[in-house]
Structures are given as structure tokens and as C-alpha cells.
């Protein structure tokens, strides 16, 4: 920072370390729980050090664990989650980019009307309108399909809003220059806007991927074919065992596995993630 005060620097690191401890602790506990056998996990207190069943639990989770809940093999479930998350992220980004572009760079009747229509989707979460949405999807014959899993969730305002904010901060000179060069709107979009929006696109990708990956209720409802299960559904299935005993180590191991892709996406893209949002704040 501006001054060099050793005390402040130390304090800074201490606060940050504490912050990380608090934030990461639950995840650490999950990890520890995934490395013990069931009786050790349910007695008080669970040991804080990892136990000796790590390999056994993870291997079991990968090969049999999910089989015992009558679901598809792990590989298939991870694929389903991946397809869903990627399709949702990509879909949202594409249609939001186009809509935001139209709303910012054109004048046409109902322009703001459209914007508000899109914006309203924030007001009523999926859980609340799930029964009628299910009917619509089934009427369209989209049950048990990747389409049904992803398209209904593509209607969303956050991405459009974010792009709109960003486009408003893009200097007009860029457009003028492109015009002078004889570029039409689509060319301008493709050759100028999209490249400079790259950081925003990356940032959104992270947010939307995680959103798609963590979906639970919607996939559960619209798929009856268990080969379409996602991994988050599988975790819930292991916990909802009515009166029987929950297999905590298995659940924790699967949770850790299910967290890896989203965390990986966040970590890898976090450079673009932060930069993307900085542009928006201008």
C-alpha cells in the first residue's frame, strides 16, 4: 500500500489467515469425514485428523457407492452434470450477449419493455414455478432430454444485465471508427465487442457453470430415466434414506468429488473472473 507499516502488514496477513481458516474449515471437515469409517463419523467428536479409510471410501464412491443408490455409473453422472453446466453457461452467455447488444446499440419500439421482461425472471425462482414449468416442458416433449434439462434454465437476467452494464461503458469512438471502416452491426459485434468482452464472458462462465452444476430440484423432477441423473442428485439420494442410516463417509467423499469441477473452474478462471467484474464497475 502507500505506507510501509510492518504492524499493519502483519495484521493484514493475520486477518487473511483467519478468514481463510473460517472459510475453509467446513470443507476441511468434509474431507476428514470422507476419510473415516461410519462409526467414527457419528460418534462425538469426530477426529480432526484424517483417518485411514481415505482410499477405500473414495474408491467405493467412485465404483460402487453410486451404484447402491440405483443411479447411473459415476462417469455418466459426471458427464450429465458437465453437459448441463456447459450448456447452461454457454446458452446463457450467447443469448444474453445478443439481447444486451440489441438493447444497448439499437433504438426500437419496446426496447426497454424487452429489457424489463428479461429482468423480471429474477423475481420468481425456479422452485416456486416448478410445477407449471414441468407441465410446459412435458407438453413440449422435452422430458428426459438434455434439452429439457438446460433450455428452461437459460432464461435469466444476470448475464444480460452484466453485458448491458459493460456495453454502456464501451467508448463510442470504437463504434464510430468501425462505422467509418464500413462495418455493419454484426461485424462490429464479432470483431470488436466480443473480443473486448472476453473477460466478462469468462467471469460469467464461472458463475453460470457453477449455477448449472449445482442444480438439484429441476433435474430430479424432469428426468425419470436414471441415466440422466446428475451427481448432485446422487448426493441427495444418499442422504434421503428415510429411516435408514446415512452413509456419511460415502456422502462426504462424493461431495468432495462433486466439488472438484466447479472449484477447478473457479480457480483456473479467477484471473479473468476478477478482471471481468472490474470492467463492469467502471
Amino acid at each position: 500500500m502507500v505506507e510501509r507499516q510492518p504492524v499493519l502488514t502483519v495484521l493484514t496477513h493475520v486477518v487473511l489467515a483467519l478468514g481463510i481458516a473460517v472459510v475453509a474449515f467446513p470443507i476441511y471437515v468434509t474431507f476428514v469425514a470422507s476419510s473415516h469409517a461410519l462409526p467414527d463419523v457419528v460418534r462425538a467428536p469426530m477426529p480432526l485428523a484424517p483417518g485411514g479409510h481415505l482410499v477405500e471410501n473414495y474408491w467405493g464412491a467412485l465404483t460402487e457407492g453410486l451404484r447402491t443408490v440405483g443411479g447411473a455409473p459415476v462417469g455418466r453422472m459426471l458427464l450429465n452434470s458437465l453437459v448441463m453446466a456447459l450448456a447452461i453457461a454457454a446458452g446463457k452467455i450467447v443469448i444474453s450477449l445478443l439481447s444486451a447488444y440489441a438493447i444497448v446499440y439499437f433504438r426500437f419500439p419496446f426496447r426497454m419493455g424487452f429489457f424489463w421482461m428479461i429482468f423480471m425472471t429474477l423475481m420468481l425462482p425456479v422452485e416456486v414455478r416448478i410445477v407449471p414449468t414441468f407441465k410446459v416442458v412435458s407438453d413440449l416433449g422435452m422430458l428426459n432430454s438434455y434439452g429439457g434439462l438446460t433450455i428452461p434454465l437459460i432464461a435469466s437476467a444476470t448475464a444480460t444485465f452484466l453485458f448491458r452494464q459493460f456495453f454502456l461503458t464501451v467508448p463510442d469512438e470504437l463504434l464510430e471508427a468501425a462505422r467509418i471502416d464500413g462495418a455493419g452491426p454484426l461485424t462490429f459485434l464479432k470483431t470488436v465487442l466480443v473480443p473486448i468482452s472476453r473477460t466478462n464472458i469468462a467471469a460469467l462462465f464461472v458463475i453460470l457453470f457453477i449455477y448449472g452444476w449445482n442444480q438439484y430440484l429441476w433435474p430430479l423432477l424432469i428426468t425419470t430415466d436414471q441415466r440422466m441423473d446428475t451427481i448432485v442428485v446422487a448426493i441427495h439420494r444418499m442422504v434421503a434414506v428415510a429411516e435408514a442410516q446415512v452413509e456419511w463417509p460415502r456422502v462426504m467423499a462424493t461431495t468432495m468429488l462433486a466439488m472438484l469441477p466447479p472449484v477447478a473452474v473457479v480457480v483456473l478462471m479467477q484471473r479473468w473472473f476478477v478482471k471481468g467484474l472490474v470492467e463492469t464497475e467502471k
Partner: protein
Amino acid sequence: MEKRAVFQHRLLPYLLVMPQIVVTLVFFFWPASQAVRQSVLAEDPFGLTTRFVWAENFRGLLRDPDYLRAAGTTAVFSISVTALALASALLLAVMADRVIRGATVYRTLLIWPYAVAPAVAGVLWLFLFNPTVGIVSFALRQVGYRWNHLLNGGEAMLLVILAAAWKQVSYNFVFFLAGLSSIGRSVIEAAAIDGAGPARRFVAIVFPLLSPTVFFLVVVNVVYAFFDTFGIVHAVTGGGPAGATQILVFKVFRDGFVGFDLGRSAAQSVILMLVVIGLTVAQFRYLERRVHY
């Protein structure tokens, strides 16, 4: 809000905006209107007998002490979660902004919780605080405090607030860090030259410049606290004990999915929707001003 340089095409904008509008109409407005219509009906879950009851569902809600109590609980919950998530994130961001070496590492480690699904986060926190087998409750017992959020409403509330805030901290953290990075060095340095210490600088310069971010995050966090925390409450306390942690969205879910009283549940959703619209309109207006500024 308005750009000076625009294109004059007539048909193209409609084409560009169509995909999103179509999806929104088919998969949002149509089902949402059905859900809203549900709020003026008294219907059995299977839709076999339907009666129009107009405002009866709404009136019943406003007369129901349970509902009003849930509204109060939601207010306390949202404010607490927002305050805690924002304050912690701001503190961490300010600290991380000062650090030059290791910033990437800190940032990475602090973003993790965002990747955890809300319901799973709830289970994790339950694990920690379970009165019998939880590690934290065990530690508290060692220092003489018997933690039991199953009996103590205040403790239950504290637990869900912690769990919900935990998830949001990383999201806010990133925004704050981004906002701090964009404040020009020169402004800060000028103030330092004038003799302002770090605390003074923060209060007089940094925070005001950060205020648009703060406001934006306030609204986003409140919306999160209203809607997306359902999973955590469900997993951790189930609204208990004795309704101490029953927030409005949880009641919507309970009445709709467990009680299958779709009319009542829809009425509650409509009310929630109006509240969120109000909040968003306020945000939108404010941000418009900010962009001009």
C-alpha cells in the same frame, strides 16, 4: 443509459433479442402466470377440483400470525446475513488489496465456498454444530457452554446465519476486491501526502468511491438471503426450533411441496415477488444515477 452512437437497423434488433425473449416467454412468463393464477384458487394438489377464491389466500396469510412471524424472521435473517457477508468480505478484500505477494493464493482460497451447493453447505455446517457429534459443539462443551440449537432458537438462528453468510462471503469478496483495484492510486496517494492515515483514507475516499459496489451487493445479498438460502435452512434446522428460523421462502416451499397447498404457497410467492421487484426497482434507479456520475 443512452448511447450516442447507435445503429439504425429495424429488423435486426428484434432478431437479436428474440432467442432470449422466446425462452423467457415460454419458460418463465407462461409458467409464472400459472403460478400467479394459482394464488387466487383453492385447489387440491392434483388439480381435480378448482375453485376461485380471489383474495382469500392473501387475506388468510395476512391474518396468520405464523406468516407475519416468518416475515419478521426473514427481515432479521436477511439483514444479518447481508451485514455479516458484506462486512467480512469487505474486511478481507481490504486486507487482500494491501498484500502484493500471495494475493492470488488468498483469492483462490477465499473463493471456494462459492462453488458449494447451498444444500450441501447446510449439511456441512450441521455436521460442525450437531449438539451431539459436532466438532464445534464439542469444543464449546469443553469450555463449559452446552450448544443445542435444537432447543435454543437464538442459536439456531445464529447457525443458519453463519452458514448462509459463509457461502456469500466469497462472492462479495471478489466484487469488493475488483472495486478496490479500480480506485485510482493517485487519489489515494494525494490523500496520503495530505497527511491522511489509512483509516481516514478509507472513510473519506475509499468507501464513498466504493459505494456503488456496496449498494449493488446489498441488493444482491438481500435477494440471495430471501431466495437462495432455502436449501440451507432446510438442511440445517428445517425452520425450527418452534419456527425460530422459518424464513418466508422456506414457508413457501413447506406449504407448497410438503403441505401441497399450492394456492397458499403461490400467494406467498406473489408477495415475495412484489417485495423483490420493489428492491430491484430501487437498485436500478440508483445504478442509473451512478452510471451518469
